[in-house]
């Protein structure tokens, strides 16, 4: 993940419509954000559209980007809002909670072998967390966002973010330790 300084530098250059800065930012962040959008929606097509729309939107609003605020948090916020919209509309058209799609990926036989018991359990435990606890934990664990960045993305205080993450970890630990026989001590 690029440093905070690089993000500040990019937003300053974006303000003056620097296409090279936009390209650098895209190269640095596209895979990370695609993973994030994929985890959010469980759908590759949707993830692609969401990340494309987010960068397009960023280019449209480039002159209003405030370099004193985190560009990384802004990108995550844009992807998150688009993903939430997607889930809302998917919910309306299918009448199914798209979260459940995550389980319906129909992985290939090869993947099934690799898809450990641990993966399945983790999936279940994380999905069963209260929504906001899960989101704070995921942003910290899988996106590597700082507490301040998560706070900006989710509209919380960093203190509350920490509480969510600690609760999530303790909860996971309790449930995973019930699997103890499966793990090396």
């Amino acid at each position, binding site marked *: *993940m690029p440093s905070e300084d690089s993000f500040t530098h990019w937003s300053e250059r974006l*303000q003056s419509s620097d*296409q090279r800065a*936009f*390209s650098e930012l*895209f190269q640095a962040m*596209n*895979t*990370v954000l*695609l*993973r994030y959008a*994929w*985890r959010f929606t469980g759908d*590759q097509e949707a993830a*692609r559209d969401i*990340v*494309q729309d987010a*960068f*397009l939107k960023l*280019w449209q609003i480039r002159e209003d980007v*405030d370099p*004193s*605020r985190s560009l990384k948090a802004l990108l995550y916020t844009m992807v998150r*809002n688009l993903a939430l919209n997607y889930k809302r509309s998917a919910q309306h058209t299918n009448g199914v909670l798209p979260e459940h799609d995550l389980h319906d990926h129909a*992985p290939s036989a090869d993947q099934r072998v*690799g*898809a*450990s018991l*641990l*993966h399945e359990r*983790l*999936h279940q435990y*994380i999905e069963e967390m*209260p929504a*906001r*606890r899960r989101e704070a934990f995921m942003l*910290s*664990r*899988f*996106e*590597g966002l700082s*507490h301040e960045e998560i706070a900006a993305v989710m*509209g919380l*205080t*960093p203190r*509350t973010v*920490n*509480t*969510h*993450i*600690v*609760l999530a*970890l*303790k909860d*996971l*630990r309790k449930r*995973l*330790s019930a699997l103890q026989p*499966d793990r*090396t001590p």
Partner: protein
Amino acid sequence: MNWDSQHNKPHTPPLPEEVWDALKPEREEEREEERAALAETWALAEHYRDLEPDEATFQQMGADIWATLEATIQEESAAEVAPAPLRLVKSRPRIFQLRPWHQVAMAACLALLIGVVFILSQQSITHTAPFGETATIDLPDGSQVILNSGSTLSHQRTFGEEIRRVTLEGEAFFSVAKSEIPFVVGTFNGTTTVVGTQFNVRAWKDDIEPATDVSVLEGKVRLAAQQTAQHAITLTAGESARLVAQSITPTPLEESVDNALAWRTGSFKLVKPLGTVARELERRYDVILEVAETDLLNEPVAILKESPASVEAILSDIAEIKNYEYRAIPGGYEIKRADTE
């Protein structure tokens, strides 16, 4: 057993240091045990990624996106008016012949001046009301803004010179000083324009039903959608309207102007889905509120607390009316359906 999968994995972030601050075991050894256990859990969570598409898939997706983006940007810059070609002008005799170093110095001064003016005009000022508090902001034009908990208001340093424009994320009550210059409040999906008046704007993007709600106490206010200028409405004292996505709808009757303004005096009056009420309580009282069953998030809830009330008093009201239960959890509360047994 070997849990490692073969494909190229993204970088694993370290366990954030802040987590340790929340651990308060009695003895030092317990602390060490707890640390080890949580660190192990953090590491094990990596297996959540086991079924992720591999790096090559994401790289291909990224390449596709970039092709589209690049085409769009090129199109846009081609559409912009091409700059007029430079014309060669015959040099005219100069009245003052500047020595070369004078020219350099003047150019430098001018560049510095332009730079300073540019930087000053670009800088924006951001005000935030922390969770659990409200904030009163006096703007340079004499207008006053009261920010509700967790809300952010920002404006350019040049506010008031040519335009009075602020951007709001959240909820605020505005007392706008009269002036020829229109006062504009930008929210995520629209703009509210006034000349001099008192009104409330509520615009939380992640409410269950995201909307910009405008309620007018005094004077006249114009609310317009961000993208379609046809969708606009003028409101006068005692009126309110709601902007959902890009269309304007009347505010439901039960959400009166009086209710919309209640937060300023510490009252809590909200007729909204439980998910929205929970977020509001989180901001107003700086606590965590977890709704155990997701289908409850859309349940309508009406709370009409006339005077400042504790979060527990509000939760107990909700629990009683809706037949829910709530319990304290670290840092906040959990709401769930009451057991019927």
